[in-house]
């Protein structure tokens, strides 16, 4: 357990990386649950190294132009648009 103890500060740090705001109650609840779940994941330490033969191949196709969504279709689910563009928050 000690190895995977998770404190509130760590939950806030990960939430920041993941761009998810949390309230204090969620932070407290997640800290307890994450400690339990991550200590369960510790059993992966016992997994042997396995020679994996990846059966993956590249699937290629000709790069041809097809009809896609219209600008109107692409924009229709956006909460806000301006002059045919998505409207986002400022970058910095």
């Amino acid at each position, binding site marked *: 357990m000690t190895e995977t103890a998770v404190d509130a500060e760590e*939950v806030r740090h*990960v*939430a*920041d*990386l*993941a*761009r*998810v*705001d*949390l*309230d204090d109650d*969620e932070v407290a*609840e*997640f800290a307890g*649950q*994450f400690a*339990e*779940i*991550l200590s*369960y*994941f510790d*059993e*992966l*330490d*016992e*997994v*042997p*190294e*396995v*020679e*994996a033969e990846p059966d993956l191949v590249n*699937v290629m*196709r000709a790069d041809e132009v097809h009809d896609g*969504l219209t600008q109107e*279709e*692409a924009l*229709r*689910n*956006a*909460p*806000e648009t301006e002059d045919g563009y*998505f*409207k*986002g*928050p*400022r*970058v*910095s």
Partner: protein
Amino acid sequence: MSADLNAFITEERIEGAGEGPLAGRTVAVKDNISTADVRTTCGSKMLADYVPPYDATVVERLKAAGATVVGKTNMDEFGMGTTTETSAFGPTRNPVDTDRVPGGSSGGSAAAVAAGDADLALGTDTGGSIRCPAAFCGVVGIKPTYGLVSRYGLVAYANSLEQVGPIAPSVREAAELLEVIAGPDEHDATTRDAGADAGYADAADGDVDGLSVGVPTQLLEGADEAVVEAFWDAVADLEARGAEYHEVSLPSLEKAVAAYYVIAMGEASSNLARFDGVRYGVSGGYEGNWNEAFARSREEGFGAEVKRRVLLGTYALSAGYHDKYYAKAQDARAWVKRDFDDALDGADVLASPTMPVLPFELGESLDDPLQMYLADANTTPVNLANLPAISVPAGEAEGLPVGLQLIGPKFGEREIVRAASALE
């Protein structure tokens, strides 16, 4: 419609071609599968108003086959759950016992079929999300081999694990629906030519004479006694019809749940990064900078289980923890694949209880996420190994349905359909 079950998020008819193998049949479609001009919510507040501008390939194929879509079914938010209780639209109830969950995450699809609100349904299965609700509701569900069915238009949760598949009252009907949706798609480069025209429904002939069934002992450990009893009764039925069984040991399966959750959460944390409230979803407003607005959108739009998985996935992939969690989970995945390949060298199919437990009571597992994850012990290994599996009703225990899971080799859907049909 059985409104009290809350099986549907949106009830809207989409008429098909009129002719074809599914003419005159109604199909319920899980709400993470895109339907042009019909809202597709994924059971999330984030997408409560999202209306796709195009059909998923499987929906195009349903329509071309003459089927009528009757609505979009309730589900755990983004497929993240085993009970359909994490939906932002409220839980679905199990038609067999309305105080119990229908299983998840495709709980609305299984409940709709079990209640007779649709002849057939589409679900999706990332770690058991078709087989679990099929087992809990007493119907049939198939998780196809990875690459048999197109994922184009499926809102992604964990790409390397998930497949769209059929839920139906009988094995033959599930196989008929599988025939319609199977086969390569230029819009999904992970689809394969294998199995495209394999005649799955014809395989439902009940002939198991000489069939060799392997029973992985690890998938019986920890299962409820009543479930194990129903399981062995079903195996005895197969024996009486000429099949033989033997026990096999697959030690890797003990690590499958942990490996599955690390991989699924890792993929989820990346896939769900697209939900920023700008192109679709709940807007985070325009106060402060880009990152602050995104974080507000996601706080507002995501439920607790989705936040939990996105955060844990971010943690498991972050610097310093990647090797400990994600790399080891990939090793475990390769080990599970190897164990299954070895076991299937000595057996035609493998059998286990689909779920180690009977359907939970509503609310029973919501406060304990780890308990809910552990209920996926028998289904998650199959997704890690990319194999096909079917859940077929195998009697009852304590008046509740028990499902039997049959696992086949890659593109061995005919074998599992045949074996399952012997139990009807």
